[in-house]
């Protein structure tokens, strides 16, 4: 079901005119109230009034995570604290956390976006939502909670942890929708099995999972073990929290971005150039309705691509690919940006290929060479040499096709790829630059 039929199925032209009007208002306000944004405009020799079309946004400087940190804690707020009703913060695993604020209207906007998201993921007002996202400074728990209430569904604010009690609640209350991180969803399945509770006997129909990257393979596993339809939700606290984009359960192919509130761009992380639809790069967001914490061309460091093709669900909003990695891992090989996660996608798509791989980059003379080492497991092994050689050729061909870079593929024995604390070392760059 589409929660907000007017905005979610709006013709492109109408949507873009709303975006432009809201963008101009946001830029005016940010310029007037946030010293950081005023300086950014001045640095670029711009005034908010210079932005006359959506394309003009490309001239505005980017905002980075570091910029947010530099303005810790409230330096990026665009309203007086009197008008701030909620504060969240991202976990500061590396360095300072980033702090975000919401006005009453922002909280309401966010709740609407989450109601849209839950609805796209299969929830209706008749559903019971088991919300296992953490409640607290993290935006996951409260984000889903407010959205569920806005939708009119019943929400169980179970939060994370105390997994055994969660299984008992699932059995006794009969929730129909599960919201959690994908890894916690699998943990729930494991604990349920230990307790002798079968997910098949529970009432779940849909699961809405996010807050960490997950693969199609993991989706298959979750759907199989939990007996529900699993969709991906995307968001980050700097932009608003969960509810920036959502997969519709009809297509499960890319996440619809709520463009009436956020303008997405894909850029080349090395040059900052805006890339056309279909190309992979770094996701950048500009909020156009937020009051307390507007973000202008915020670099997420998440790798994705945008697709404008119409969707079977009826939504006209662009779709972003499932986030496949972080820009921090990017390699530039002969001028082509290569993300290890793209190689992983290529391998995943080829049936049976082991996901254990490693990229080795060398420089021979002035030429960069890429070797992809792939561990041979029992699924791909054959007693016939020609089949193995054929596998190497097919992987190489697919990498060339999808990434535009030539790679030599080398099959290696299991465990040949060095692991560090159980995780494979994905990249070895031998270039002396």
């Amino acid at each position, binding site marked *: 079901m589409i929660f907000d039929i007017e905005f979610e199925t709006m013709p492109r032209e109408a949507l873009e005119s709303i975006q432009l009007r809201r963008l101009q208002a946001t830029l005016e306000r940010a310029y007037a109230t946030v010293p950081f944004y005023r300086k950014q405009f001045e640095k670029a020799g711009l005034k908010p009034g210079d932005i006359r079309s959506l394309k003009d946004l490309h001239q505005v400087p980017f905002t980075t995570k570091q910029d947010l940190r530099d303005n810790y804690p409230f330096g990026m707020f665009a309203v007086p604290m009197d008008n701030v009703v909620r504060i969240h913060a991202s976990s500061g695993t590396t360095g300072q956390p980033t702090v975000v604020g919401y006005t009453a209207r922002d909280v309401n906007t966010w709740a609407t976006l989450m109601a849209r998201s839950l609805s796209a993921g299969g929830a209706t007002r008749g559903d019971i939502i088991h919300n296992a996202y953490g409640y607290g400074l993290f935006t996951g728990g409260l984000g889903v909670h407010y959205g569920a209430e806005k939708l009119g569904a019943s929400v169980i604010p179970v939060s994370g942890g105390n997994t055994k009690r969660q299984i008992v609640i699932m059995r006794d209350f009969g929730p129909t929708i599960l919201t959690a991180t994908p890894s916690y969803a699998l943990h729930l399945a494991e604990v349920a099995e230990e307790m002798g509770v079968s997910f098949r006997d529970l009432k779940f129909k849909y699961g809405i999972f996010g807050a960490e990257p997950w693969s199609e393979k993991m989706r298959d596993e979750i759907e199989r073990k939990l007996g529900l339809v699993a969709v991906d939700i995307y968001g980050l606290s700097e932009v608003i929290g969960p509810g920036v984009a959502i997969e519709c359960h009809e297509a499960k192919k890319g996440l619809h971005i709520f463009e009436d509130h956020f303008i997405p761009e894909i850029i080349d992380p090395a040059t900052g150039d805006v890339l056309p639809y279909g190309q992979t790069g770094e996701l950048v967001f500009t909020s156009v309705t937020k009051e307390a914490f507007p973000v202008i061309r915020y670099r997420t460091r998440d790798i994705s691509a945008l697709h404008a093709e119409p969707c079977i669900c009826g939504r006209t909003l662009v779709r972003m690919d499932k986030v496949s990695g972080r820009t921090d891992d990017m390699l530039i090989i002969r001028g082509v940006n290569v993300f290890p996660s793209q190689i992983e996608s290529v391998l995943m798509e080829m049936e049976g290929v082991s996901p254990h791989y490693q990229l080795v980059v060398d420089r021979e003379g002035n030429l960069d060479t890429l070797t992809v080492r792939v561990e*041979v*497991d*029992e699924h791909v*092994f*054959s*007693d*016939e*040499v020609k089949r*193995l*050689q054929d596998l190497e050729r097919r992987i190489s061909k697919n990498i060339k096709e999808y990434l535009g870079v030539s790679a030599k593929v*080398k*099959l*290696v*024995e*299991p*465990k*040949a790829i060095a692991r560090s604390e159980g995780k494979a070392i994905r990249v070895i760059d031998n270039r002396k630059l």
Partner: protein
Amino acid sequence: MWVKQISVFLENKSGRIAEVTKTLSEAGVNIRALAMADTADFGVLRLIVDNTLKAEEALKANGFTVGKTDVVAAEVEDRPGGLHRILTLLHEGHINVEYMYAFVQQSGDNAVMIFRFDQIEKAVALLRQNGVTVIDDDRINQL
């Protein structure tokens, strides 16, 4: 009717075959036949052993990628043209030989060859119709 072959994926690094034979000898497994097919980067070691199950377990426990394939052991007359006759039969029967190698022991006066076919049942039927002796798993262990 046919024989179980074990194959092992190996990188082309010195000492890897020795690792396999060491693993098998420590597990008390006898190697009856062995052939290596390799490229510049990797190879596939094919083995006929007296205890396939034990061999497979020992190799897997030592981190090797192991495959199991059905192959055919056939007697080849130990005289000029003996092998040629069999290959001609197969060719005329439109059966591909993916690869073949010699078994160490003889069967009486005859040599024994190991064949890997694309259509194993058809191949065995054809060989038998033409009087070629096909040796099964039990008997090959007694050679």
